[in-house]
């Protein structure tokens, strides 16, 4: 009979740099910012003694105390509202949504209070709203959301989503230091993915918000993507290389404000573009990117801009259903071949 073992409580301070997964990188970033700046605090459901549903905030309460790591009731409006109010007073909240799906319960305060405050009366809200997003982990319609589109049409919110451990740390630190509200999406499939474990520098660094990353250089076509789909794109690019197709992969990292120069530079180089994302196709960020390209680089295109995204349904639970819902590497391969042959 197996003996139940109590999970060892990891309250130790994370290493500064060193080998880290994406989730460890985020934890390092928050920890270092709380050490650096006494106005930074964490707020959310189960973020204290439990360390958060995914353990992003593990150990923070032991180090910084419950005055700076605040467990809340199940109240997203209270979490967002409190982050906004504290922001007015010069305190910087790192607010957690247990799953990003629950951001809908804080939508009103995010879009009407946090986003508009600076514009309305000059009172900026320096706060980070973060949480696990993303599908492909068999979590069904309420724990799999990619919510970026809900917020793209709201002026006043910055949105980031890392796909590497290095960027995860650099972006969380940049988000905390940013004077305006930043939504920080963390793809839960990437949290502990061994493939993403990498050596982080020991020094203090940030990744600038608003700058895309060239994840792979290529000449023949560009895949513009972000989050977990960066890995799908890179996998496809490797296969396509064997077929003689040289694919460029742009990892957006910041979804608002979009890195227009970064996107356009790649378009002008390869002249063929696929936009790839996990959220449903209709009304997704792919449409916005395609429109920017159509408006600003129309004469550089050798083929229509292709959008590859999930189908227009809620995220289903069962593996065959979810795999059908979500773009797969084979879908990227097929689309890339057609695009190259256009």
């Amino acid at each position, binding site marked *: 009979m197996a003996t139940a073992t109590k999970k060892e409580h990891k309250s130790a301070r994370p290493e500064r740099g060193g080998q880290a997964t994406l989730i460890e990188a985020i934890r390092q970033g928050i920890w270092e910012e709380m050490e650096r700046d006494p106005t930074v*605090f964490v707020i959310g459901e189960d973020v204290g003694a439990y360390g958060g549903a995914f353990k992003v905030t593990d150990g923070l309460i032991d180090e910084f105390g419950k*005055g*700076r790591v*605040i467990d*809340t*009731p199940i*109240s*997203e*409006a*209270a979490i*967002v*509202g*409190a*982050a*906004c*109010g*504290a*922001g*007015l*007073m*010069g*305190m910087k*909240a790192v607010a957690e949504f247990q799953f990003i799906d629950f951001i809908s319960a804080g939508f*009103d*305060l995010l879009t*009407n*209070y946090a986003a*508009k405050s*600076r*514009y*309305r*009366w*000059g*009172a*900026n809200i320096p706060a980070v709203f973060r949480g696990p997003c993303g599908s492909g982990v068999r979590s069904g319609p309420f724990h799999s959301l990619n919510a970026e589109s809900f917020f793209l049409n709201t*002026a*006043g919110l*910055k949105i980031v989503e890392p796909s590497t451990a290095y960027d995860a740390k650099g972006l969380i630190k940049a988000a905390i230091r*940013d*004077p*305006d509200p930043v939504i920080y999406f963390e793809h839960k499939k990437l949290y502990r993915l061994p493939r993403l474990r990498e050596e982080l520098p020991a020094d203090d660094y940030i990744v600038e918000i*608003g700058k895309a990353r060239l994840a792979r250089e290529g000449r023949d076509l560009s895949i513009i993507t972000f989050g977990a789909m960066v890995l799908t794109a890179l996998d496809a690019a490797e296969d396509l290389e064997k077929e003689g197709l040289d694919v460029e992969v742009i990892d957006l990292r910041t979804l608002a*404000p979009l890195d227009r120069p970064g996107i356009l530079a790649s378009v002008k180089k390869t002249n063929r573009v696929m936009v790839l994302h996990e959220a449903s196709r209709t009304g997704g960020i792919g449409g916005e990117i395609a429109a920017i390209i159509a*408006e*600003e680089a129309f004469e550089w295109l050798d083929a229509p801009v292709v959008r590859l995204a999930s189908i227009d349904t809620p995220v289903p639970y069962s593996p065959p259903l979810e795999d059908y819902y979500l773009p797969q590497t084979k879908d990227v391969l097929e689309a890339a071949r057609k695009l190259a042959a256009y």
Partner: protein
Amino acid sequence: MRISTKFAPRKSTDGQPLSCITETTLKPEQMLELYRHLKLTRLVEERLVNLAKQSKVVGGVFRSLGQEATAVGSAYALGPGDFITPLIRDLGAVLVKGIRPREIFAQYMAKAWGPSGGRDLNIHFGDMEKGFIGPISHLGDMIPVMTGVLLAAGMQKKKTVAIAYIGDGGMSTGAFHEGINFAAVQKLPLIVIAEHNQYAYSTPTNLQTAVNDLAEKAAGYAVPASIVDGNDVIACYEVTKRAAEFARGGGGPVLIEAKTYRRRGHAEHDDQRYVPAGEIEWWEKNNDPIDRCERYLLEQNVATKEKLEEITADVLREIEEDCAWAESSPMPEAEQAAYGVFDNDIVPPSFRPEVLKN
């Protein structure tokens, strides 16, 4: 939990018209200051109505006619480092906090010199130095926001207290519940003033909630509650002063239900067809907060009729001067619309796409 009714409305026992409570620590000059704030509130609003008739106000005009005492009396009980977040009908509290009428006029007229530079309406702005955080249109939202203000003040070791105003309508929102519940759990020094003015737009309270007294709702959060005569400016002051002492001393949030009556519609365009005949007139004749305050000041020999007229004349002078200032402001430069979404040093202002230029 017991609801305190010490300051609740009382019917006139001797057939005399209603006045104010006499049990108070307010000094005569403070009472006159309260009177000045009441008059200033009413007359600023009357001027706004006139400006609207001249088409100088761009949006709607929202009155607090008949309920000015709740906002004025409660806000007056706070200290200079304390915060308020008012509702649209709490202009009185905003003025008590030191916002000048000129800011209100410029804001209503969408002028460049207004505190939001023409970007938002009426009292939708704020002044952190003066402890005023303006509301947004979404009722209930400011309760959670104020929990954050008070959490932060606690982290900063400040002994700050805050009032969040809400109404019989706003208390039906989820944000109200989430905010007061969180405040109670965290024992934050938040005073929730529930202005029971009997109509939310056109909806009467019996279609808004099944409780008789809004104060009953506080028990669900283990928050102590009182009922106050919202048209008695002295009672509103006294009950809030006690609440502020309790909250500042670490007792946690307090809810005060102020019984009052909204004599004008939701905004000036509202014809109030839903109000039973005679109801407004009854309140105007028998329970006007300014009439009651005047009667009190004269009865108690705090002021003479001449003194009150002098105060009113002074208020009118201020309104005249401030209105002229606001009218002399230019409208905002159109291109300013593109600035200030983010810190402009980091993200440049947003403009139209290149392809539409030239």
